[in-house]
C-alpha cells in the first residue's frame, strides 16, 4: 500500500511538473541572432514523435528531418529535448518548422538535465523559442542571415534594415535585436520608423521601444519623447514608451514634465510611472 502511495505521489508531482515551468534565458531569445549563437544545427523538421524521457525536467522528441539548414549532419532523425522550464511544447509544433538545436550535448551537460542516454542528444535552443514556424518569406531570409560571416558588415546592417519592416513577425523582431546592437543614429532612426509603422506588430513595436530605451543616448531619449508625445501613435505604444523612458538618463525629468501635461495619456501614465518608481 505504501508503495502505491509513493507511486501516486510521484505521478502527482510529475503531473504538476508537466504544467509548471520557468527559466532564465537570454534577452531576445526568440530572435534569429540569439538562436544562432545558442545553436550548432538548424534543421527543417518533417514531424516529431514524443519519446519517454528519463528526466522530469525535459520533454524528449524524436525529430524526423526534412532538410539541414546549418551544420553538418548525415542522419534523417535525431533525439532532441526541450527543457520544461522553457515552456511546454506539443509535437505538432515541430511539423514544417525550422528547429534550432544545440549539441550534441556532452555527458556532463546531459547529467545536469538528469538525462541518461547513449544516443547523441540535442537540446532545442531557447526552449520552445527555438521552434520557428516556417513562413513563405522566412526560409530565404534565415539562410541569408546564416550566410553572413561578419555581423559588423554593411551586408548585415542591410539585412536588418530590410527585415525590420518584413511581413514576418519573427524577422521583424530579429532585425530589431540586431539593429539595437549597432548603437548608431542611423540604426536608431530605422527603429523609430518601425515603431511608427503599421506593418510591425504591437508586441514587436513594444520590443523596439525597449531596444531604443536600452541604447540610453540623448538621441534615443529624443526619439522616445517624440513617439510618446505624438497623439497619432497607438495608445498602447505611447504607454509602453512612457514606461520605457524611466530607464533612460534624463527620463525622470521628462516624466515630471509630462505629469503636468494637458495630454491625458501623458499625464496619467507618467504620474503612475513616477509613483511606481518611488515605491
Amino acid at each position, binding site marked *: 500500500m505504501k508503495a502505491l502511495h509513493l507511486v501516486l505521489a510521484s505521478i502527482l508531482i510529475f503531473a504538476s*511538473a508537466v504544467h509548471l515551468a520557468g527559466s532564465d534565458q537570454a534577452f531576445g531569445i526568440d530572435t534569429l541572432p540569439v538562436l544562432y*549563437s545558442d545553436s550548432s544545427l538548424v534543421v527543417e523538421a518533417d514531424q516529431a514523435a514524443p519519446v519517454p524521457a528519463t528526466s522530469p*525536467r525535459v520533454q524528449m522528441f524524436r525529430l524526423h528531418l526534412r532538410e539541414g539548414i546549418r551544420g553538418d549532419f548525415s542522419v534523417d532523425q535525431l533525439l532532441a529535448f526541450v527543457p520544461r522550464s522553457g515552456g511546454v511544447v506539443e509535437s505538432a509544433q515541430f511539423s514544417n518548422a525550422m528547429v534550432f538545436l544545440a549539441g550534441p550535448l556532452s555527458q556532463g551537460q546531459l*547529467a545536469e538535465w538528469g538525462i541518461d542516454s547513449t544516443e547523441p542528444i540535442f537540446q532545442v535552443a531557447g526552449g520552445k523559442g527555438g521552434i520557428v514556424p516556417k513562413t513563405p518569406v522566412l526560409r530565404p531570409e534565415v539562410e541569408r542571415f546564416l550566410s553572413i560571416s561578419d*555581423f559588423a558588415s554593411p551586408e548585415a546592417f542591410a539585412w536588418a534594415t530590410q527585415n525590420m519592416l518584413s511581413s514576418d513577425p519573427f524577422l521583424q523582431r530579429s532585425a530589431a535585436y540586431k539593429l539595437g*546592437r549597432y548603437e548608431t543614429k542611423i540604426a536608431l532612426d530605422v527603429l523609430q520608423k518601425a515603431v511608427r509603422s503599421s506593418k510591425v506588430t504591437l508586441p514587436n513595436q513594444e520590443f523596439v521601444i525597449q531596444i531604443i530605451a536600452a541604447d*540610453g543616448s540623448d538621441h534615443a531619449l529624443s526619439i522616445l519623447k517624440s513617439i510618446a508625445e505624438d497623439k497619432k501613435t497607438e495608445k498602447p505604444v505611447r504607454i509602453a514608451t512612457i514606461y520605457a523612458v524611466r530607464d533612460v538618463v534624463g527620463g525622470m525629468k521628462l516624466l515630471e514634465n509630462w505629469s503636468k501635461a494637458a495630454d491625458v495619456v501623458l499625464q496619467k501614465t507618467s504620474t503612475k510611472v513616477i509613483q511606481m518608481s518611488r515605491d
Partner: protein
Amino acid sequence: MRRILLLIFALSVAATARSQGTIDDPREDEIVRGPDVLLRGTAPPATNVVLRVNGTVLTVPVAGSVWTAVVPLVAGLNVIDATLGSQSKSFAVTRAANVSSRQNPQRVRLHWKQGVDGALQQIASDTMTKQRMPNGAIVSRSLTAREQQEFVDRVKPRVAELFAEAFQSAGSIMLTMETDHDVHVVTFTSENLNQYGEQLPDCGNRISGEESKVSVGYLHHRLTFQFSDWKPMELTDELDVRIEDVARSLARTAAHETGHALGLVLERGDCGWMHGCDDFHTCQLFQLSNPAVNRFGSGRFIMDPAGATRVNMRLGESTDSIRGNSRTSPVFSNFDRSYLRFIQPKAGN
C-alpha cells in the same frame, strides 16, 4: 512678497491634500486572502467614497477623515475604481487561493559545484583582455593566476550578499550551509545549459528540497560569443568592476530561479490567480493590459521574463551606453514580494 508666495503655495498644497484621499490598506498590488477584504484609507471629511468593484458600486461614508469598507473579491486580479474626494484612482488587489503560509523559514544553500571555479576564471580572463595605459593607449592584457583566483574568491561571497539582499523584504528566506532535505539548493554549474538558469515552479512552495540550476557555463558562452552585446562592459574594465558585473548577473539568476521554486509566477492550475505569462513570468502584455499593476520592468524586477530582460539590467546598469554612478539591484515586484511574505511569513508578520 516671497513669504506671501510661499504661504499661498503651502495653502494650495494643503487644499489639494484635503480634497484627495488615499487607500492605505492593503498596499497597492498586494495579495489578500479574501473572499471579503477590508479596505481602509483617508478622504476629505463629510464626503462619501465611491468604490466600484467587479460591477458592484459601494458608497462609503467618511468618518472624520477615515473610511473603511468590506468588499467581496474574486480569486485573481481585482481592480477597484475609487472616487476619493476630487480624485479617481484605480487600485489593484489580488485575491490568493490554494496556498498557505509555511511556519518555518525557507532555507537556501548556494552550492558551487566542482568545476565552476574554472568557468569563473575563464569568464574573468576572456572578458578582461585589454588594458588602458596611463597615456590612453590600449594594450593586450592577460590576467595572472592570482588575479583569476581573486576573481573567484570575491565573486562567490558577493553573489551570496546580493542574493540575500534580493530576499531581504520578501519573506523569510535564509541562506544556510546545512544539507537537510528541506533546504532549497541553488547549484552553480560550469556546464552550459543553454539558458542562464532552470527551475520548475512550485505553487505555494509545496515541494521540499528542490534544486535550482544556475549555468555559469552559459553566462560564459553569452559573454564571449558577442561581447559587444554586454555594454556597458568593456574589455578594459578593472577587476573590481568585473567582479561586480558577474556577481550581479549570477545573483539575479539565482534569485529568479528561487522565485520559481517558491511558486512565482504561475499561469494556470492552483496558482493561476497569479496571472503569470510568457512562460511563468510577469510580462509586458499583462502590464499594459492592466495599468493598475506594476509587475513588469524590462529587467527592473527579478521575475521579469529573461527574454525581455536587457543585458545591462543583469549588470545592475540602467543603460548600456555608459556606466552609472551606482548600480541598481533588481527587486521583486510588490505583488511578488507580498506573495513571498504570505507563504514565508517572517516572525511577527
